[in-house]
């Protein structure tokens, strides 16, 4: 009997998503039964790495089989879910999912910043977005997507914020590592170009023209198109 199939059967009939820790408990409990045979006993103290490897293999198997459902890990727990393209029929079957309204653009931006840069203070979020985020932070906290995780050891000890488990569930993510382009966004290193960016080349040497432009409010005529 293969480990992955045992796992498949467990996840197939589980009432809720199961974490590797919960799965290990099942293996331990099964081995503790009096009538447990050698196979069951041999899996008593299965290692988490083995479990994860078998689960990953199972995911690949299902993917290759091209079924209407797949095995996913959301917020660290495994479960079977349907593929999104079958939603029209599923909605008719089970009714529209009770889900809170979609997030607004400001809320999504704020959430993205917190997700990639956590733990982060409110002031730091505001610095990136360039606007006040009091309202959106409150919405995100009320919806349980963001929570206070501690306090920054700087003057005033401002609150630090991070995302919650619900955030991962809401977006169907395995972990924070699973965020799109996570590596790139965690710490954006903006390369300073050697000759930075300027306004117009030679602008400084030609003040009278510029003054004229400002008066007229017409800039296009005198400004050469920016080199691209």
């Amino acid at each position, binding site marked *: 009997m293969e480990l992955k199939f045992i796992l498949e059967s467990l996840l*197939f*009939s*589980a*009432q809720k998503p199961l974490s590797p820790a919960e799965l290990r408990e099942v293996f331990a409990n099964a081995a503790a039964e009096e009538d447990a045979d050698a196979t069951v006993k041999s899996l008593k103290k299965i290692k988490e790495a083995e479990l994860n490897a078998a689960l990953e293999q199972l995911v690949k198997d299902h993917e290759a089989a091209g079924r209407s*459902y797949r095995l996913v890990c959301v917020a660290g727990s495994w*479960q*079977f*879910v*349907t*593929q*999104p393209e*079958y*939603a029209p029929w*599923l909605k008719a079957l*089970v009714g529209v*999912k009770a*889900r809170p309204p*979609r*997030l607004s*653009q*400001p809320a*999504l*931006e704020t*959430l*993205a910043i917190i*997700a*990639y840069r956590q733990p982060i203070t409110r002031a730091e979020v505001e610095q*990136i*977005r*360039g*606007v*006040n985020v009091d309202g959106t932070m409150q919405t995100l906290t009320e919806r349980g997507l963001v929570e206070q995780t501690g306090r920054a050891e700087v003057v005033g000890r401002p609150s630090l914020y991070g995302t919650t488990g619900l955030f991962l569930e*809401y*977006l*169907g*993510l395995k972990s924070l590592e699973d*965020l*799109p*382009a996570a590596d*790139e*966004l965690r710490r*954006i290193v*903006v390369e*300073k170009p050697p000759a*930075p*960016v*300027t*306004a*117009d080349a030679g*602008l*400084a040497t030609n*003040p009278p023209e*510029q*003054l004229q432009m400002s008066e007229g*409010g017409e*800039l296009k005529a005198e*400004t050469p198109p*920016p*080199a*691209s």
Partner: protein
Amino acid sequence: MSEYKVKFEVFEGPLDLLLYLIKKEEVDIYEVNLTKLATQFIEYIEMMREFDLEIAGEFLVMASTLMYIKSRELLPVDQRAETEEEEEGEDPRWELIRQLVEYKKFKDAAAQLQTLEARQENVFPRVPGKIEFESEKPAPKPDVSIFDLLNAVNSVLKRFEKRDPTRDIFEDKWTVSEKIEYVVRVLTSRESVRFSELFADATSRSEVVCTFLALLELIRLKQLVCAQSEDFGEIEIKKRPAAIATPASSDTPNLAPDTLA
């Protein structure tokens, strides 16, 4: 300004507006002409003012930063006033570009999160029916001994142990017969009653004792049965099924308290 047609979008903030203006110019953020951008930004603010829109403070801060950058460009390099900030090597143009690049990345990331959000709406988890086995709830122990009852009443009486030594003295106004009527009344309206419920309203030790004596009397008269589902569990009091049909003939429950003595 007349050709300046703006589809009136709501901008999340000054950075959002700047990104929009840059996108309109179809240039890379790094190569953007800040002087031109400053002009456009201020034109936009002017327009917002014309439409009587409330201009958030952040827009004005950005406008002043842009004006500062623009005015700085007007001076030949050697005549620029060296501010303290610049001694630290912070170029305001560079600072703004850096901020724009960073904001742009998060704006894109937000769009990706939005895609995930929409996708997740269409994903349905497998929710199997609960596998149920016949669970055998331990049958109530039919007989409750007098010790079980005493244990139970003792725990009720503990409520009255910690009393202020100085207290008001009330007349003992409860009689066992009244309490018998009370217990019978409770059990006509309901199937069963928990032991503790009977004593929930008791206000004094003597009231508890009266109710307890009433209970014992009714048990003696075989009007009630007591059952306990587990050791030291809650005792449940029910009417004896037969007792409803044929109440004890000679011994009426209405006993005077002295009968018990």
